[in-house]
């Protein structure tokens, strides 16, 4: 409660005493939802380059990655921000799961160690964000406790949120289920990999961060 109040006062002061130089736009969500794929899509569309590596093995992004000074345009408006790609948030890390995915024991243990640190960093960075895109895999259950906890935290901190139901191109995807799970937020179904519906996504970005 005190944290939320502090955050609100900081925001009010920032609005009163001058325009902020740069908006920090964070990508949050569980592992393998497609945060880095979306970061790459945004960077490719507006900077012409990728942001990070993607992989089918969970926890590929284990460090906070920042791409500065991205400028996007939609319907005659311009939005400038620093994009912050964060490691996927999970409540458990087991190196044996990485071994099942094909990694050797030493690599798996190292990946697990880095992944735990990445999650701690991602949580620490929550307070730094001005707006957040939560990237969920539309083929999976949106009601998981990790998702609910992330959304609840952002709500408590009064940080604007846009929810992306990614992988909407897949047969098993259910964007409506994601919308039903979080009716208080804008939910946009996209395919970050193939770029479908990203125009709507960029328009929605202006709503939360513009």
């Amino acid at each position: 409660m005190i944290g939320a109040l502090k955050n609100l006062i900081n925001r009010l002061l920032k609005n009163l005493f001058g325009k902020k130089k740069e908006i920090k736009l964070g990508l949050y969500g569980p592992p393998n939802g497609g945060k880095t794929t979306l970061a790459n899509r945004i960077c490719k569309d507006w900077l012409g380059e990728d942001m990070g590596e993607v992989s089918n093995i969970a926890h590929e992004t284990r460090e906070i990655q920042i791409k500065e000074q991205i400028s996007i345009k939609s319907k005659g408006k311009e939005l400038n921000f620093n994009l912050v790609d964060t490691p996927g948030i999970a409540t458990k890390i087991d190196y044996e799961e990485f071994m099942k995915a094909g990694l050797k024991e030493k690599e798996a243990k190292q990946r697990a160690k880095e992944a735990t640190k990445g999650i701690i960093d991602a949580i620490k960075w929550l307070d730094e964000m001005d707006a957040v895109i939560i990237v969920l895999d539309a083929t999976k259950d949106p009601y998981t406790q990790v998702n609910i906890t992330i959304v609840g935290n952002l709500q408590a901190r009064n940080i604007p949120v846009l929810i992306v139901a990614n992988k909407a191109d897949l047969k098993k995807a259910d964007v409506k289920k994601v919308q039903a799970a979080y009716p208080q937020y804008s939910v946009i179904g996209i395919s970050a990999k193939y770029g479908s519906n990203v125009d709507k996504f960029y328009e929605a970005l202006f709503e939360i961060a513009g």
Partner: protein
Amino acid sequence: MVTFQFVPYYEIEDLGSARRVKKLIDIVKQNKIVLLQGRLKKEEETDLIAIAMEEIKGRFKGIELAVINPEEKGQEGLKKLRNNFFNAILGDRQGLTIIGPASIVRDIKKDPTKIELMTKEARKKR
């Protein structure tokens, strides 16, 4: 054998956030499943995840977490406002928080009034 430990809200009521989280993690690290009356603050839930990550070592692989609050859905207007007010003053005693060690609890599924707790042992038996 799976051991559950019930933690009534009054046991954490007077503790600061860090001590609340530590108390719960300490129980989970004893391979027990915590059944906490009510729920933690939203910020404490993320602290719980962060502390669980810091504690991962050896057999401790993190936690499974579920918060069940059947009354939360469907509350609107004055009733919601009233509950939020009392929760802010007295703490959130409604519902139930389940925290289990990931080495024992594989998954917790909730269906607002039904809880399914899948243990690793259960999977082996199938």
